[in-house]
Each structure stands twice: as C-alpha cells, then as structure tokens.
C-alpha cells in the first residue's frame, strides 16, 4: 500500500467498465492521477469522456453494473478494495462530494440543520445539541446569514446559491482530505457561480482540503484550478498546471477544446441599413403573467413592461439569468404563453388575446429551436419524419415520403448526411440532433426564428460548430432571429443587438459594443464582471475587479 504517500488521492491504472444493454462500455481506460493536499485538480472533458466516472470511483459511488480495476488510494486507503462498511467510513471522513444540482442533493422534507447533523451523527457519537451547534457553525462558515435562525429552515426556503453553500457545508462537515465537486456551478447563474467559486477557493486556502473539480466550463477552470487533467474517451490526454494548459496546450484535443470556447469580444458589427422595412416583432410595454393557483391574487408577473422590436434579418440576443423572463418572451412570441398586457405584434398579428385559430396560419413564418434537442423530437418518428412534420402540417406534402426530397435538402443545409433521415432521434448525438432541430425550424423558410438556449445542452466544441452553422444559415437565408441565452459570450458571437433582462425588466439594450463593451446598467456590469474568462491570468485580474464591485 502507498500508505506513506503524501498525496490526498492517487489513482493508478484505473479501468472502469459498465455492463449495459448494448454490451460492455469501457468508460475509463488506464487513468493515473494524483491530487496533492490543498490543491485543486480540474478534470475537463466533454460529456461521455469519463471525468465523472473517474471522480466517483474516489468515493466508490459507482453502481452495481460497474467493474473497476486498478488502484484508487485516498489518504492511505485503497477504495477499490473496500467493502460496504469500509466505504461508509471513507465517505464523509476522508472524501466527500458536492453535486451539480443542489436542490436534488438536499432532502426536501428535513430541515437543513437536521441534514447537517445527520452526517455528523453517522460518523461518531455526538449529542443532538452538539450536532446542532456544529451545524450552525458550519452554516456560518459557508456564509449563510443568520445561521442560528436559518438552521431550522427547509431547503426550499433557500436560494439556489445558498443551497449549494449548504451542500458544501455538508461536504466539509468531517473535514475530509478531498472533496469531489461534480459541476458544482453548472446549475447556477453566473453571478452566483462567482460567489460559489470564491467560497471554494477560500475553503481550500483555509482548510487545506484538496478539491477535484469536474467541469466543462473553461472559465471555471481558469478561475479555480491549480492543475488540469484533460480527458478524452476515458483516457487522460494531458495533465499540466493551469497556466501551461491555457498558454501552451500540448495535445491536439486540448487545443481544439480551448479554441471552441466562446470568448467575449464585444466586437462591433456593421449596423443594419437605416431604412429597414417594418419590424417583424414589436413589443410595447409587454406584460406576461403566470396565473397563481388561487385566483388573481398570487399571479406571478414574469415580464414587466418590456419594449423592443426585431427588424427583418436582424439578430436580437436576449440575455439574463434564470427567472429573468427571457424564455417567457420567446414563448409569447411563438404563441405558447398568453400575453397579459401591453402590446406584442408578431408578423402583424396582435398577440394580446389572440385566438390560436387566427395565429395558426402565421406559424409557417416562425421557426422555433428548443433548448434540449433530446426531448424536442418525437422519439418514435425518424428524423426525416420529424423534419417533414411542418411541411405536412402546412399542406406542402401529403405524406412524409413526398417531403423526402425537401428534407434531404434541409439536412444537407445543416450539414447532416441525408442518410441520417432514416435514423431515430436517440441514435444521433446532441449536436447532430440540434442541427436536425435547426433543419426542422427552417423547413418552411421562416421570416423569424426563435432560438431558446439552443446550445446550452451541448458540449463546448459541439456548441462552437452549431453556432458557426447558425451564423452561416442566417447569412444565407436572412431570417430574423430572437436568440435567447444565459451565455454572454455566445450572444456576443451572433447578435446585432443585445437586450439584458433582469427580473422581468429590460435593463439595457443596444449593440454588442455598447452593452458588452461599455455597460451602463449596474446589473450588466456585475453580470460581465462575474463571467469567468478562459485565461487564468486575465481571470485573476477580473476576480479582483469583481470583489471590488460586489464588496
């Protein structure tokens, strides 16, 4: 045994195989990694690269279908050899985990104090009062205000960022040698992400806990990591200190991964000609409400008096955090959500109180690309049938077979081989599906395309290709676009004009250079400052700026 080793975690020749319906899947192949005490090791890679599986073996958290061999030594103990009770002792005391979705990692029917105490009581005799006192101390440690009062609150009474802080407190409870953080900020808004990253950095500095950070966000890596391991198809292709990875990536794949990361440039685009024809969409003091459960009293107002317009051929980017109302606006334009007040003109139709029957004819001029390509196709129809659906509905073809010529053309336009038309949606990768989704949205040659977070479910290199394709198609077909995204860098790549939404209000609107280059609204400034950039040196400088802005 490597008992005398000084590393917090040592992984040697790790192989993990999963038994699945389609035969064995070799998810991790011969991986060797070290994590030193007080070090943040970031494991980056795309979905399916084995980064989560590798990290989960440190806690022995793989399911019964996994076969593991090799050695995973956590402060002197080989995890692979451990039985169930040994693993239970290891978890919490030597290694702990922070999950991606904090609202799912907490049990909704117990108070957070009880859940924190649960972990303490599982590892040794400790009285109820002591456990509670310790829970309060832990909550204070991770920056929850008024911990004495809030320790008895239930998870739903905390915000997403606070929940993640509580999950971190739980992980820290037994002062483990290493914490596995599996995409700890992916489910959080960018301003909250910056706070959580600051907390993790502070804890690492003060407690000396090693952190294994799993992420696909290169900005987060640049912000927090000391060393980076790049994984591809279950193998580690490159391991290097964070500065070297960004400055001089050795492996071809690392280079491609970094190139694919969208960067904020705030570039100015040539303005559209002044004498543009009548805009396609005009919103004036638009109000959208979600009715509450009990009558009008609890009505939730998602969009407050927002005004904007989209000219033909123009790309309007809408950015904002979750709950800012950006998707709601997109859905209202597509007629999926009713308008409560103000005015919204879409292709000449007033959407306030519109009847579905009147609007149905206009739908041929509107394409919609959904966020999750995995669920936006009918899983029982082939891709060709799915793409042909708008053509059939609007009477341009009688049966899917008749539309096949046009479908093949569309698939070619989005750079998918025509043969993919015969496949079912689940047989395509995420990026391919999203391209097919674009093909469907463009089937009727629409004047307006609404893209609701079209790339946020995709890996970064796939995202880059989909965005490139999008730009090319937009130039070729000249449709106007409402592009909704939480990612400023993505919107910056595409949009002629950018609107920033905050809590249902449009706080700033203008060209990319105006909004991103010289933001006037304090919220936009904060949003920009909390965005981690994929460059460790630059990010360190921005971190200070952010601290000044928020402190």
């Amino acid at each position, binding site marked *: 045994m490597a008992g005398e080793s000084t590393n917090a975690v040592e992984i040697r020749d790790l*192989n993990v195989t999963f038994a699945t319906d*389609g035969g064995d899947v070799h*998810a991790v192949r011969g991986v060797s990694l070290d994590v030193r005490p007080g070090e943040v090791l970031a494991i980056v890679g*795309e979905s*399916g690269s084995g980064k989560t599986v590798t990290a989960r073996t440190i806690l022995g958290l793989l399911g019964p279908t996994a076969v593991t061999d090799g050695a995973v030594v956590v402060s002197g103990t080989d995890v692979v050899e451990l039985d169930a009770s040994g693993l239970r002792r290891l978890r919490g005391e030597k290694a702990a985990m922070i999950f991606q979705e904090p609202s799912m990692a907490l049990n909704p029917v117990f108070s957070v104090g009880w859940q924190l105490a649960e972990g303490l009581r599982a590892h040794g005799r400790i009285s109820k009062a002591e456990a509670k006192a310790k829970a309060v101390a832990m909550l204070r440690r991770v920056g929850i205000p008024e911990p004495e009062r809030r320790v008895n609150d239930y998870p739903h009474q905390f915000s997403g960022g606070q929940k993640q802080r509580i999950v971190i407190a739980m992980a820290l409870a037994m002062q483990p040698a290493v914490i596995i953080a599996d995409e700890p900020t992916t489910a959080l808004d960018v301003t909250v992400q910056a706070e959580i990253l600051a907390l993790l950095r502070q804890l690492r500095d003060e407690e000396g806990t090693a952190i294994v950070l799993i992420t696909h966000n290169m900005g987060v890596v640049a912000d927090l990591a000391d060393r980076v391991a790049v994984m591809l198809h279950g193998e580690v292709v490159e391991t290097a200190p964070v500065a070297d990875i960004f400055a001089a990536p050795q492996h071809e794949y690392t280079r491609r991964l970094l190139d694919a990361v969208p960067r904020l440039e705030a570039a100015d685009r040539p303005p559209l000609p002044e004498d543009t024809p009548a805009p396609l969409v005009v919103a004036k003091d638009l109000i959208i409400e979600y009715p509450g459960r009990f009558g009008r009293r609890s009505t939730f107002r998602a969009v407050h008096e927002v005004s904007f317009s989209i000219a033909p051929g123009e790309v309007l980017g809408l950015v904002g955090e979750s709950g800012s109302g950006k998707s709601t606006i997109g859905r209202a334009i597509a007629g*999926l959500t009713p308008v409560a007040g103000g005015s919204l003109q879409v292709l000449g139709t007033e959407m306030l109180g519109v009847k579905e029957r009147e609007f149905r004819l206009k739908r041929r001029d509107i394409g919609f690309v959904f966020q999750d390509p995995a*669920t936006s196709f*009918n899983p029982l129809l082939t891709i060709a049938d799915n793409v042909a659906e*708008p053509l059939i509905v609007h009477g341009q073809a009688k049966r899917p077979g008749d539309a096949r010529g046009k479908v093949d053309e569309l698939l070619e336009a989005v750079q998918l081989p025509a043969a993919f038309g015969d496949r079912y949606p689940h047989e395509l990768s995420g990026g391919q599906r999203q391209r097919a989704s674009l093909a469907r949205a463009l089937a009727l040659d629409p004047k307006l395309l609404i893209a609701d977070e079209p790339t946020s479910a995709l890996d970064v290199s796939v995202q880059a290709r989909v965005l490139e394709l999008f730009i090319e198609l937009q130039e070729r077909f000249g449709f106007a676009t409402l592009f909704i995204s939480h990612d400023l860098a993505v919107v910056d790549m595409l949009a002629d004009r950018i609107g920033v939404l905050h809590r249902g209000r449009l706080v700033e609107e203008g060209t990319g250079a105006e909004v991103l280059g010289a933001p006037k609204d304090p919220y936009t400034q904060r949003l920009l400052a909390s965005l981690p950039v994929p460059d460790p040196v630059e990010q360190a400088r921005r971190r200070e700026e952010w601290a000044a802005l928020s402190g």
Partner: protein
Amino acid sequence: MAGSRLLGRLPVVHQLRQAVGLQRGMLVAGLALTGVFLVLATLAPVLAPYGYSQLSDESGNFGAQQAPSAEHWLGTTVGGYDVLSRVIWGARTALLVIIVAVLLSVFVGILLGLVSGYLGGWVDRVLVVVADAIYAFPTLLLAIVAAIAISGGQSGLWSGVFAAAISITVVFIPQYFRVVRAEVVRVKAEAFIESAKVIGASTPRIMFRHVLRNSTRTLPVIVTLNAAEAVLTLAALGFLGLGIEPTSAAEWGFDLNKSISDVAAGIWWTAVPPGIAIVLAVLGITLIGESLNDLADPRLRARRRGKGTPADAVAQSEPVAREELGEVQ
C-alpha cells in the same frame, strides 16, 4: 439480418433476448405456461377426447362421478361430463373472454384517457370522477351487476362470453384510463409536443401522431396482468352461477361450483383439475406481466456482468460521439 432485427423489436421477443438470470427464468416459465394454455385453447377440438357437452359415446352413457379410468383419465363430473375434456375446452372459453375483454377495455380506455389527459378541463374532471366512482365498487359486484344487466345471468357461448367480457371491461376501463391519462399528462409537457404546437399542427394531429404512441409504453404490462384478472373474474362469475350453460361451452368456474358437494364425498377429481387449470393460466400470464414490468425499468433490469475489459466495447457503443469529435484520438 433485417428479419431478425424486426423480430427483435417485437414486444416479448425483444424482452426475452434482453433478460438474464432469474428474470429470464420467470419470463420463460410464464411464456411456457401461457403457450400450453394457448395450444389447449386453439386445439381443443383435436386434443379433447370428448366434446364439452358430451354425455355418452358408442358404449353408452359416461355415468356420473366416475373415478379416473382408461376411458376418462380424470373421471366424470356429477353431471356426467368428462372432466379432462371440460378442462381443455374451458381454456378456449377463457381465451375468448380474455381477448374480447382486453380489446374492448384497451380501446375505450385509451381513447378516454387520451382525450381526458390532453384536453383537460371539465371533460377531464368528469371522467376522473366517474373512474374513481367505479373504483369504489368491489369489482366482482360490478361484474355481477353487469352480467345480470346484459344477459339475465344465463346464456349461450357467445352471449355468455360477451356478457362476461363486458362485465370485466367495465372494471378494467378505469385502469387503462388512469394509466394512459397519467402518461398523456406527462408527455403533453414534453418539448416535442410544444414543437408540434409551434409548427401549427392541429389538436387531433398532435393527439394521435405525437401523444398517443408515446403514452402506451406501460400498456403491455397492464394488458397481461389484466388478462390474468379476467380469467379470475370469469371463474368467479361462473362459480356464482352467472356464467355459461354447460351445454353452450365449458367453463372452469361453473365446474368448480358443481363440484362443491363432491369434495365432501371424497371425490377429488371433479374439483382439482379445473382449479389447477385456473391457477396455472393465471400464474403463466402474471409471470409474463411481472417480468415485462421488471425488464421495462432499467433500474430493475438485471444485466450480464462485464467480463474483463474488451477494448472494442467503446468503439462499438459510442460511434456517434467519435464522429462528432473528428479524427483526434
């Protein structure tokens, strides 16, 4: 190759290939029992030594309550029928009732569930209340009421089969309705339904092309479990004297009823064979249903353990991701 792929997509065949271990054993046992049941039902005229209502042959009357012998392997009943023949012919009656009952309840239940779940509103509320009200009745009571209302309690083969099937249907429709409605409500919220709406598809088109087929995944399991329950309900109706006349068709429940007095007299052969027939038929169908249920759920499904670490497993299982990433390895 294409033929075997098509075969592999059929329900049951697909699951049989997928199953391993105990789950496979359950499924195979269920399929074997059900297979025997189906063979008996379809080939009853060939397999049964006598007709179901035959009381005599060339050598005269069979006689009542005769012990098993070379002529009558399982003896004769109090009414003078051959027990073995009645058991075999009984399978045919049971199968007819299952088919009619399941077909009726599946069609009505799915249609109501689809309309109720997709349209919602007051239609939905009324249908759910009616379904709940039907649930409140003991199923057998409901079946008895239906049987009396339909046929006055006694009848011939087809009217008897339909009376039994419809009484069972009344009990089953709420089950299909509930399951399909729940699935429809779930599927209705999926993005591909929204994308169909955005395209401008009409409501019937969305319901039948996009929602319907995505909402029927769990039906094979319920169909098999209900088929087993149909056999039991039919036998119970027959046992209570609401079944089919012995001259119209053989029916296990009716035979059990007539053998009650025999049991006290030490005559076992009139009661045991129809009883075993009911048990095995129900067991066979239930085993299929339960193992389909387990196999449908990836968390319950057992898999073959991986042996060693074949390097090409990755290449086989993730071709799409590779394509996406290009040539870099």
